[in-house]
């Protein structure tokens, strides 16, 4: 399906995170965009296909898709590749070596995790790929950040010559929010393809010399994360309880504990350990809220930072305000967490489990016969 809506030209919009990412690609002067459809990332390329200045394609799979984006990056163009979480399993073969080559034109991989499994076979946490592939991970928490972080990802990619992961989740992709557009990038690529076999041809003799570069880049990116404006502290009146959050967990924490101080990680890998350590000492109880694996939690505990995480929070599914309240404050239900009239309304919705379509050819061709 290619559901298309009219191209937005206003400066202030009400759009989904996926459309915000597509607008970011447009305004970041992306030349090539590729994807294989996958919930919850699919609409990104559907929107991008409306922009005539961008070559966009449905690729055969996520691996080929990333390779097309890589080729464009090597040719000097900015390139975006979007996929769902399991797609990066397929594309990882290219990613794990491309990290040694790095990016030339900005190379951004938007990977959308289906937290809650609305339409997926598992709930894996794509932030692991940042660690595995030694590439930075940005985690927007709403529509505006989906736009801003995607644009920033291209700048980071070119500044540090590294592919950048923008990790979003279903909640970010599909929820609509207000978006204020910024001025488009006008800078054109500096040059076309430059032959450089020692960098671009990853035979053993060349690749082994790229590994020290990658390790050095880890240190530089860690410093960048420590200094990044994407990692910021929001003061709160509460001194006994504070939070470290990444991604959409920020919204859930703000809704459940509006008075608590929050350290929000937008540039979540490499981990800005020292920044977190400094703010961890200002509250009595520090809780790390991340979807879904205890990834930052393990890394920060290894650094000697005292905090709670998946010892009290669920290791599966979205950490919505109700889930947080229940986990943090015990079984006692909080009166303010959900308004009774909303619960009543929700109960009246008729259940709509996934099913086949009316008149689907598979009904006769496969299901009835089998």
């Amino acid at each position, binding site marked *: 399906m290619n559901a298309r809506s009219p191209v937005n030209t206003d400066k202030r919009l009400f759009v989904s995170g996926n459309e915000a990412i597509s607008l970011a690609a447009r305004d970041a002067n992306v*030349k*090539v965009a590729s994807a294989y459809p996958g919930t919850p990332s699919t609409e990104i390329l559907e929107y991008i296909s409306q922009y005539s200045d961008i*070559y966009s*394609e*449905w*690729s*055969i*799979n996520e*691996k*080929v*898709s*990333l*390779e*097309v*984006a*890589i*080729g*464009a*990056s*090597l*040719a*000097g*163009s900015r*390139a975006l590749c979007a996929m769902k979480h399991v797609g990066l399993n397929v594309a990882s*073969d*290219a990613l*794990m*070596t*491309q990290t040694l*080559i790095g990016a030339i*034109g900005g190379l951004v991989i938007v990977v959308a995790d289906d937290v809650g499994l609305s339409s997926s076979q598992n709930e894996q946490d794509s932030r692991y790929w940042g660690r595995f592939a030694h590439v930075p991970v940005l985690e927007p928490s709403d529509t505006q950040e989906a736009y801003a972080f995607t644009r920033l990802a291209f700048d980071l990619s070119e500044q540090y010559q590294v592919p950048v992961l923008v990790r979003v989740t279903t909640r970010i992709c599909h929820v609509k929010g207000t978006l204020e557009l910024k001025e488009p990038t006008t800078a054109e*690529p500096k*040059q*076309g*393809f430059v*032959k450089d*076999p020692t960098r*671009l*041809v*990853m*035979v053993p003799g060349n690749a082994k010399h790229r590994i020290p570069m990658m390790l050095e880049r880890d240190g530089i990116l860690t410093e960048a994360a420590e200094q990044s404006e994407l990692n910021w502290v929001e003061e709160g009146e509460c001194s006994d309880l504070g939070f470290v959050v990444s991604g959409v967990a920020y919204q859930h924490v703000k809704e459940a504990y509006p008075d608590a101080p929050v350290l929000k990680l937008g540039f979540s890998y490499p981990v800005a350990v020292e920044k977190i350590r400094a703010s961890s000492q200002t509250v009595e109880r520090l809780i790390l809220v991340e979807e879904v694996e205890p990834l930052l939690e393990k890394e920060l505990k290894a650094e000697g930072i005292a905090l709670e995480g998946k010892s009290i929070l669920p290791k599966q599914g979205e950490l919505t305000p109700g889930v947080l309240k229940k986990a943090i404050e015990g079984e006692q239900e909080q009166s303010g967490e959900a308004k009774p009239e909303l619960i009543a309304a929700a109960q009246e919705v008729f259940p709509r489990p996934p099913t086949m379509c009316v008149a689907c050819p598979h009904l006769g061709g496969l299901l009835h016969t089998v």
Partner: protein
Amino acid sequence: MSPVRIWGVYYTLSKVRNTYISGDIGCYTLGAGHPWNALDTCISMGASMGVALGLDKGRQPEDANKKVVAVIGDSTFLHMGMQGLLDLTYNKGNATILLLDNRAVGMTGGQNAPSSGINLQGEQTAQVNFPQLVEALGVKKERIHTLDPYELPTLFKALRDETKVDDVSVIITNQPCVLTERYKAMQPLTVEEKDCTGCGNCLDVGCPAILVTRRETVVKPNGKEKELAFCDIDTSACTGCNLCVNTCAPNAIVPAGPVVGNGYEAPEGLAVENLAVEVK
């Protein structure tokens, strides 16, 4: 692919100008090395296809006239390359694919693959038909060529012609890996020392059996110095493929010892002068 079978391909590629060449994973990745320097990228299994499309679609205005070539072996193509070729045709790319079919997984020692039609147990089984396969993946029939990689002028002409076409082309080379039983060695070669002029053209083939026995620096009439490299062939290593014969203008490369039954008969018109005309 095993090295011996690719020398001709890379010798040819190294003579092609104005071209970006995406490479892949296999013994043919060695084409990135000296003296061919014929690969520009190598990332992951099958990546030559997608990267070629990205180089095509992401090219800057200054690269508007560059040709894009992808190089991939048969078993890598079957492993992960087919999807990339389908992406190229589906998305209207413009690239020329060199599909180097030596009917083996060459780099690991010549193991069998669906391209060989023989399984792990050595039994005959289904053998993939590459022209049919790539046609099914959307390559137009007239853009598919199967040829002998030892016939350098034919290879060069096919490459030159297909890179001019704004479409996806596939050139399949069809000689087997030298590590397998399919390969039949021929009369080994040697160099007539008195006839070698030291031009060094044969070294561009990159064959390990060709040795430099003596180097000299001469001063040409115009006053410029020229390096000469006089060569010999290690007859015990040579399998008589005759690629080097194609490059030797003074015909100094000859069969070692008396010619046996399957000895090489050089086709006419394969001297290096003819190649040089094509190379322009």
